[in-house]
């Protein structure tokens, strides 16, 4: 098996959790990579919905923007943005929603708004976008986020979206899932250690009794992944 990057491991691990009857709301970057990978491998029926209004998009290559023309061209339907948020997301028709963030806490609450105080931020982040309502409208929220003590924090600077429906957090070190009301390390990627994961977490990270190792990406997964990653800037 050839080597793989941390991003590839993350995409593969998230993709494996999607099936052919999943309708997922996808943002740009790793989520888009994961969802498209699933569609190209074990879950050809997986439906990709982008907040730009494209329903059932089937891009051949990874879009740089959620509004890439290819998404509209390959979609089953293109709807207006108000319709997307009202009828499709709020309508409860989306199974899985992917989210990223600058900070996450042990309950899966996310911050993508500011670092520092809201009125006088140290860093003004792009903001929530679709996240606040994705987090409360889809059945299952998947978070994809590189793990570090700066990102996995004891207390958020700002709550952009709620964690109630976060079912899984895929990081570059492993996988966290809610257990007894708190995100708990349930999986380690090949080569990562519990110590690394604990060190990269700003709260006292719990480790599941049944901690298991992630399967490394297969040749087929990597091939499909790399075929997707050829457009514009890397995802």
């Amino acid at each position: 098996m050839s080597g793989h990057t941390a991003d590839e491991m993350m995409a593969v691990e998230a993709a494996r959790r999607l099936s052919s009857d999943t309708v997922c709301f996808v943002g740009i970057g790793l989520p888009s990579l994961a969802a498209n990978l699933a569609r190209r491998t074990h879950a050809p029926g997986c439906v990709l919905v982008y907040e730009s209004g494209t329903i059932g998009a089937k891009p051949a290559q990874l879009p740089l923007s959620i509004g890439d023309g290819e998404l509209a061209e390959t979609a089953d339907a293109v709807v207006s943005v108000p319709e997307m948020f009202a009828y499709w997301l709020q309508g409860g028709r989306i199974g899985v929603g992917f989210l990223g963030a600058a900070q996450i806490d042990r309950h899966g609450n996310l911050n993508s708004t500011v670092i520092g105080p809201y009125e006088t931020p140290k860093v003004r982040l792009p903001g929530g976008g679709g996240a606040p309502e994705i987090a409360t409208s889809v059945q299952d929220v998947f978070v994809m986020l590189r793990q570090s003590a700066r990102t996995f924090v004891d207390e958020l600077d700002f709550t952009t979206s709620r964690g109630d429906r976060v079912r899984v957090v895929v990081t570059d070190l492993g996988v966290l899932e809610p257990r007894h009301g708190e995100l708990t390390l349930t999986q380690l990627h090949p080569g990562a250690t519990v110590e690394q994961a604990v060190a990269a977490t700003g709260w006292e990270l719990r480790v599941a009794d049944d901690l298991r190792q992630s399967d490394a990406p297969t040749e087929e997964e990597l091939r499909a992944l790399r075929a997707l990653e050829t457009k514009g800037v890397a995802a």
Partner: protein
Amino acid sequence: MAEIVSLTEAVRELVSDGDTVALEGFTHLIPHAAGHEVVRQGLRELTLVRMTPDVIYDQLIGMGCARKLVFSWGGNPGVGSLHRLRDAVEHGWPAPLEVEEHSHAGMAAAYAAGAANLPFGVLRGYFGTDLAARTRVASVTCPFTGEELAAVPAHRPDVGVVHAQQADRDGNVQLWGITGVQKEVVLASARSLVTVEEIVDELVPVPGGVVLPGWAIDAVACAPGGARPSYAHGYYERDNDFYVRWDAVSRDRDTFARWMQENVLEAVPA
């Protein structure tokens, strides 16, 4: 009935200092040419409304046109930060920027409410977020079920600006591909400007096409390439490299100012 005028004339007639202006186009058909004309005409104290402030809003903010920004996601898509937006919020340069921040769902509901001449839009949103306390959102109670929902004040911009593929000579407009909130912003605004790739003799209906009748628009201006570096479905593609280059251009105040001087202020309007 929409008047077909030059972009310069349209902006001069429709936009004034202090106006609330929404230049929309959700990841597609972003009205860059119109935004540049706003910069060239030196408009000031604008309240800028847009779901996804993009490079064009970074430029307007960096050039000091804006007093306030109403938005839901302000980044350089696929690249990172909007440095001029950040500089304004973090350091008040070139001027302090008041921020009214929403979620996408809230912005979309506010535009739809505005288009429908309702004072507010209703959604299941904002609950449990810190945003709720920081923005204009209230709660309404369902008179039938007792459920509590979020209410956002309708967007009713003074001027709505969008870019589209085509207009005919009566000012009827057709746009297609990702249609975003284009229709809503035109209908929600007191005055509206549509820039188009071309003026055609007859609008031929295309699949997914949204048609805005000329009588619902104030001005149409022909601005070929007017969405660049964004794209116009069927006309040209998104200039992804530009978005990457913008990161470096916009990071530094002087580099930014020079770039704007050369590429916008000294440019000849469409």
